[in-house]
């Protein structure tokens, strides 16, 4: 199987999962006891007509299965095919339409569009931070197994996985923002905006300021990932160092340095890659808290707002999209895995 074929294969495999995400979220939101319309209007104002008109506007007057088909965008297709009863069905998920936010009264997709980049920026930077620290630390710890360096880095990693990220965020704000006052703690700036918007002279300054603003949230979000990746890197490196091919390299006079950097290193990255993919969901969840602590207008904050305002459509849309982001992330890491490990694309997939 070539890499291309494998890519197609993985994408096809993702379809049922994405469908599953939509089903699970849709059911959870719609089978919950509350009624969205109740939350929208106060009791005094509630009249039959008002409720009916609101329900009609958001498509809540139809049976649940029909709502689901509408939401996914199947109805739209059925309408296109001329199936009776679906004549003028609205576009849905498949057409990129996630409905209307009840609180903002704007399309959900439009609301999300500006919120996705900050979250991606945050999560990806956190991974960059985590990897640059975790990989060398993990390798060093594995190489000095059961020596002081190893013990110290293991304990640090254990603390890393035991500490809530938002609390780290709060502590960082207290230390760097309040006590030392050397780093900004809120009002994130985004590099894709016009520098003049923030009153900066040029793009270079904007980038510099972005980095400064990003630093604390990235450390807060990245610490957990760093710790987790370091632990896995360490154990997989240890396994790799004990493997027969490393012993063979030793027996042929390859220097320890080369063994560490080449022979043992590359195979040991495989579990790390898998882990990065699977942990994307934890990072996205963590982003919700970090965005709240550092007041970043990303997807996480949008979700929190949507829950505060009980904006059903927005809750549905944001949750599904986060799930999709995860699925796509996993596919990307799987391809990276296949790139490193030639066995994956050979014959049956791993």
């Amino acid at each position, binding site marked *: 199987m070539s890499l291309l074929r494998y890519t197609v294969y993985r994408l096809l495999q993702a379809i049922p999962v994405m469908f599953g995400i939509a089903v699970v979220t849709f059911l959870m939101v719609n089978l919950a006891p509350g009624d969205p319309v109740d939350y929208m209007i106060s009791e005094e104002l509630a009249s039959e007509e008002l409720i009916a008109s609101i329900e009609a506007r958001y498509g809540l007057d139809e049976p649940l299965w029909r709502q689901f088909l509408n939401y996914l965008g199947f109805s739209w297709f059925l309408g296109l095919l001329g199936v009776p009863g679906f004549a003028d069905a609205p576009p849905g998920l498949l057409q990129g339409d996630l409905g209307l936010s009840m609180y903002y009264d704007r399309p959900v997709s439009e609301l999300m569009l500006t919120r996705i980049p900050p979250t991606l920026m945050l999560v990806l930077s956190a991974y960059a931070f985590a990897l640059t620290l975790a990989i060398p630390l993990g390798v060093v710890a594995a190489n000095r197994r059961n020596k002081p360096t190893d013990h110290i880095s293991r304990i640090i990693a254990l603390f890393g996985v035991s500490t809530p990220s938002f609390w780290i965020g709060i502590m960082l704000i207290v230390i760097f923002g309040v006590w030392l006052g050397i780093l900004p703690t809120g009002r994130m700036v985004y590099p894709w905006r016009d520098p003049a918007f923030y009153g900066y002279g040029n793009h270079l300054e904007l980038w510099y300021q972005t980095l400064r603003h990003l630093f604390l949230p990235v450390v807060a979000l990245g610490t957990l990932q760093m710790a987790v990746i370091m632990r896995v890197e360490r154990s997989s490196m240890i396994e790799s160092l004990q*493997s*027969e*091919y490393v*012993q*063979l*390299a*030793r*027996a*042929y*006079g*390859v*220097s320890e340095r080369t063994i560490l950097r080449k*022979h043992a290193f*590359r*195979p040991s990255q495989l579990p790390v890659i898998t882990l990065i993919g699977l942990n994307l969901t934890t990072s996205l969840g963590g982003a919700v808290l970090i965005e709240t602590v550092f007041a970043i207008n990303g997807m996480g904050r949008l979700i929190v707002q949507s829950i505060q305002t009980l904006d059903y459509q927005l809750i549905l849309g944001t949750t599904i999209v986060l799930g999709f982001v995860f699925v796509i992330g996993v596919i990307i890491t799987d391809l990276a895995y296949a790139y*490193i*490990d*030639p*066995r994956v694309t*050979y014959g049956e997939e791993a």
Partner: protein
Amino acid sequence: MSEPLLTVRDLKTQFYTDRGAVRAVDGVSFDVEQGEIVGLVGESGAGKSVTTSSILRLVEEPGEVVGGKVRYGDRTLVGFDEAAVADEDGRPKLVHSEEMLSNREMREEVRGNEIAIIFQDPMESLNPVYTVGGQVREFIQINRDMSKEEAREEAIEMLRRVGIPEAEDRYSDYPHEFSGGMRQRVLIAMALGCRPNLIIADEPTTALDVTVEGQILELVDDLVDEFDTSFIWVTHDMGVVAEICDRVNVMYLGRIVEQGPVDEIFHDTKHPYTEALLNSIPRPDRTVSDLSPIKGTMPGAMNPPAGCRFHPRCPDARRACREVEPDLLEVGLDHRSACIKHGEVGYWESEPLEHTEAQPETVEGPR
């Protein structure tokens, strides 16, 4: 006779475990001459592989070479001196002798270019994420100071020599695209490509099918003729020993019990263990109606039996065997056996041991 290529004297290697030290190799001595294939044969747990990794100083923690001497040509791979300070038991403490090669010298001067190794499991010995050719090339490059290009050409040539079809194309294939037999050929190409004088082959055909084993043995025969390389051939298979070895060392529980030319080992057997081993294996070339197995299994190396280590299973054991630790005694030209039958320590006067204790296989209690 000229100076042997490799001499191993009284080599001792221990593994430190929670339950005490395991003396995996306990005083092993043998020689390897230029151009010969020396067999190291024994059951699992006899200490064969530990012996070979001790020679190359590849024993890893918690194991350690604790005594003896290994000389390769005029180089000392392993050597000990008695230190001035005594250890807590009052015995002189052993320290690494001065002429012993440093780790760096070992790596740069011996491993690969003088002594190469082939491991048992061809499936695990190749790095799965690098191409087969690249791995062969790298080792050749390191050990023969070649440029990358030269090493590449040499690697392809070696792959062809060991019978890998379409060597040029397969150079850039990954290990998982090779069958077990082909991978073992790759490992042989790797070893030969470094032009060592001695190759340690650690059960190289055990994981292979018979016909593939036949191919490999044939190949090794040809290559030995061509390159005049010496081999230490570790195996548990007496058939392979008979087939390929010039001289044989039979190991039992960390010691060599008999050593000599292959023909004498099989036809003028001097140690009861070798004898019993030969009697217990079925033959492919004739129908044997009854095999006489050796009683019990080899005990652990943690608490080896006193006296002769084989005595609890030995059909010829006598009372004296429990008390006297047998040394390797000359029993023929270049033929030695560690059995007190051949010495004068009162074996024949001693009472035969009855194996009535009925402890066929020592079972350790639950922990």
